[in-house]
């Protein structure tokens, strides 16, 4: 039986007959291969562009959704807080009323004085005064500087020594403590008003020593006990005072939460403007409620890059007139592209010339910088180098009859009248029109959301584009590439203005470094082409950018 691999002389001769044999295929085969390769690359590229488009669209939707949720939460929280304040105020009023009722006969709650000696006859008056105080507090919302704080602390220490008050406040929470104490004062005043009958009829005030005692930093002991100083009536016994304080304390325990949120309109009210004649009542403090982080006015600079899709958005406004002009010409009788014009010495085959342009890709990179101009608003700008590519196709080319150089016919090359050229039609081929320019964007942004290291900014603005040049090339390399510099030879304007909208998701990597992810959309505010061209172009770009920023201290 013959083995499979047992090859005889016959097979050996046939195998050797083709060793080293070479035979070339036809000349045009490489062009077909090249065309197929370009097509495959184009398919890959288009898939990539579609992928980026989806990512960019998803990012915009996500950003808008996140922004919407953040806004909803902010608004919702404000509403809840307002309701809570109203409820707490009512509860506090109710507590005070109950206290008044329980102490009726001892106290005269109807006519009292508020903390600055104003007479308050009814609750309505109290409300009016509170509103007035709120107005004043607006003008007093500045945080005390270090010197003021030191002075205040010194004064407080004096009071502490005088009163023997132990105030368990954290020195670091000085401002909050001041605000809290003020709110407490407001509540105390209302309560003390109810006890004016048996006390001195004087208003209450916060004991300044309730804050910032260096040796007292235990915030856990929020239930501070008040010491009441009786100034006018020295005969009043300490036991009465203690009893009153205990009563007040019990009453306040019922309305502690209410007091905590009672009215932060007094947050920045400076307690040291108050009179010395005070009754200080300690109440729980909720530092978190009053902690308002003020972002510093930050300046940043960074690098960014973006990619996306570019749509030249071309319209033939002069099509009819131009077509009529061509049809009237004895040379050109069947030119389909109205954007092209030819000189009299141009030979044109009597076939339809068809040139189109469609979406392509966009790439940009550059520097950006910005500044936070308020807690929510930012201003940002930069400078970028951008490449925007429009794809297209054509079935014609121009051939110089002297040099035989073959070039692409394209609207952006304007009128062909500098040389004697013949216009020939051919199979449709793909071309690319690449714009190079420097872009200077300026945008205002609003910080929709900021939590931990993550933030969301929506922004809009304008961008000034300075065109450097555009290059027309066919993808198969059959024709000579041509670059047209911005200026008189170019049908495109050198300066163009675009509207910009975008979102920016920022993530703080380290103290000074921020990573940003920025989908954006831009559209030309006017035609990118000069007024004497027969077509208008208002390019649109959807971009998807990344950046790294450095925040200066």
């Amino acid at each position, binding site marked *: *039986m013959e083995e499979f691999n047992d*090859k005889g002389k016959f097979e050996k001769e046939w195998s050797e007959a083709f060793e080293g044999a070479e035979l*070339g295929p036809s000349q045009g085969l*490489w062009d077909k291969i090249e065309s197929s*390769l370009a097509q495959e690359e184009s398919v890959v590229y288009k898939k990539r562009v579609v992928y980026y488009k989806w990512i960019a669209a998803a990012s915009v939707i996500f950003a808008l959704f996140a922004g919407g949720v953040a806004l909803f939460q902010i608004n919702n929280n404000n509403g809840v807080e307002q309701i809570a304040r109203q409820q707490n105020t009512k509860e506090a009023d109710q507590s005070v009323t109950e206290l008044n009722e329980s102490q009726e006969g001892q106290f005269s709650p109807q006519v009292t004085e508020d903390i600055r000696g104003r007479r308050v006859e009814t609750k309505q008056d109290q409300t009016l005064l509170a509103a007035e105080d709120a107005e004043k507090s607006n003008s007093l919302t500045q945080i005390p500087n270090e010197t003021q704080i030191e002075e205040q602390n010194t004064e407080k220490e004096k009071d502490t020594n005088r009163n023997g008050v132990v105030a368990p406040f954290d020195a670091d929470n000085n401002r909050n403590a001041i605000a809290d104490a003020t709110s407490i004062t407001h509540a105390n005043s209302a309560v003390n008003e109810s006890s004016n009958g048996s006390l001195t009829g004087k208003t209450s005030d916060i004991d300044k020593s309730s804050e910032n005692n260096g040796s007292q930093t235990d915030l856990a002991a929020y239930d501070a006990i008040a010491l009441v100083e009786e100034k006018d009536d020295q005969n009043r016994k300490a036991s009465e005072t203690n009893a009153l304080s205990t009563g007040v304390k019990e009453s306040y325990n019922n309305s502690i939460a209410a007091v905590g949120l009672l009215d932060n309109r007094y947050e920045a009210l400076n307690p040291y403007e108050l009179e010395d004649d005070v009754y200080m009542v300690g109440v729980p403090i909720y530092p978190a409620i009053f902690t308002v982080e003020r972002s510093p006015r930050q300046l940043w600079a960074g690098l960014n890059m973006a990619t996306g899709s570019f749509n030249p958005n071309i319209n033939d406004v002069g099509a009819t007139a131009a077509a009529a002009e061509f049809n009237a010409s004895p040379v050109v009788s069947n030119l389909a592209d109205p954007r092209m014009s030819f000189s009299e010495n141009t030979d044109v085959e009597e076939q339809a010339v068809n040139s189109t342009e469609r979406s392509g890709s966009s790439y940009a990179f550059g520097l950006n910088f910005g500044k936070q101009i308020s807690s929510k608003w930012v201003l940002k700008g930069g400078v970028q180098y951008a490449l925007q590519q429009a794809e297209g196709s054509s079935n014609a080319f121009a051939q110089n009859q002297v040099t035989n150089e073959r070039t692409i016919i394209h609207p952006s090359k304007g009128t062909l009248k500098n040389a004697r050229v013949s216009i020939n039609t051919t199979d449709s081929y793909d071309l690319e029109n690449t714009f190079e320019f420097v872009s200077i964007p300026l945008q205002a942004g609003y910080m929709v959301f900021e939590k931990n290291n993550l933030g969301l900014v929506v922004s809009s603005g304008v961008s000034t584009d300075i065109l450097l040049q555009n290059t027309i090339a066919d993808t198969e390399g059959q024709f000579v590439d041509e670059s047209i510099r911005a200026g008189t030879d170019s049908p495109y304007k050198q300066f163009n203005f675009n509207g910009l909208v975008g979102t920016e998701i920022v993530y703080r990597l380290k103290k000074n470094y921020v990573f940003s992810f920025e989908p954006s959309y831009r559209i030309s505010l006017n035609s990118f082409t000069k007024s004497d061209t027969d077509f208008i172009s208002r390019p649109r770009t959807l971009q998807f950018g990344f950046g790294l920023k450095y925040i200066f201290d």
Partner: protein
Amino acid sequence: MLSEKELVEGCIKGNRNAQRDFYEYYSKKVFITCLRYSKCQDEAEDILQECFIKVFKNLKNFRGDSKLETWIKRIAINTALNYQRSKLYLFPMVDVEHVKNEFEEDFTLSNYHFKELLKMIQELPSGCQVIFNLYAIEGYNHKEISEMLGVSVGTSKSQYARAKSLLKEMLGEEQKVSYGRV
């Protein structure tokens, strides 16, 4: 002229000039293979075109286990087989256990130009042509061929026997074959 390594690197990067040089260098060698598996020039060019597109797409995966030319030829053969598969119908002929090698000791094709031999191969029926190429020229055995084409070993053998017989007839008509006489 760039070295083979530089050419390959250029092709992987998508450099069109490198790809063209690569094509110019290997296409003549590979085109012969394509012609052996096809009936005419156009068909061979279609196979060659598809082959080079695959080569450029997969060149980054070439590990250098074999000669680059061998790797490209293998791609050309696979492309040709795929191309012919639709029209390839191999008759399940009678199993052939013994193919006699009559007069083969003195058999020579030295009097023939490869183009004449190529023409004879192209005149073979499609099934015989493919199996003859795979067995006699590429050097596969019948078991490998049966696996490649999804046919029985016997079918491969019988198709080859038929191809051999037909070729001998053609060679006999040409009167150039030397059987013991030069």
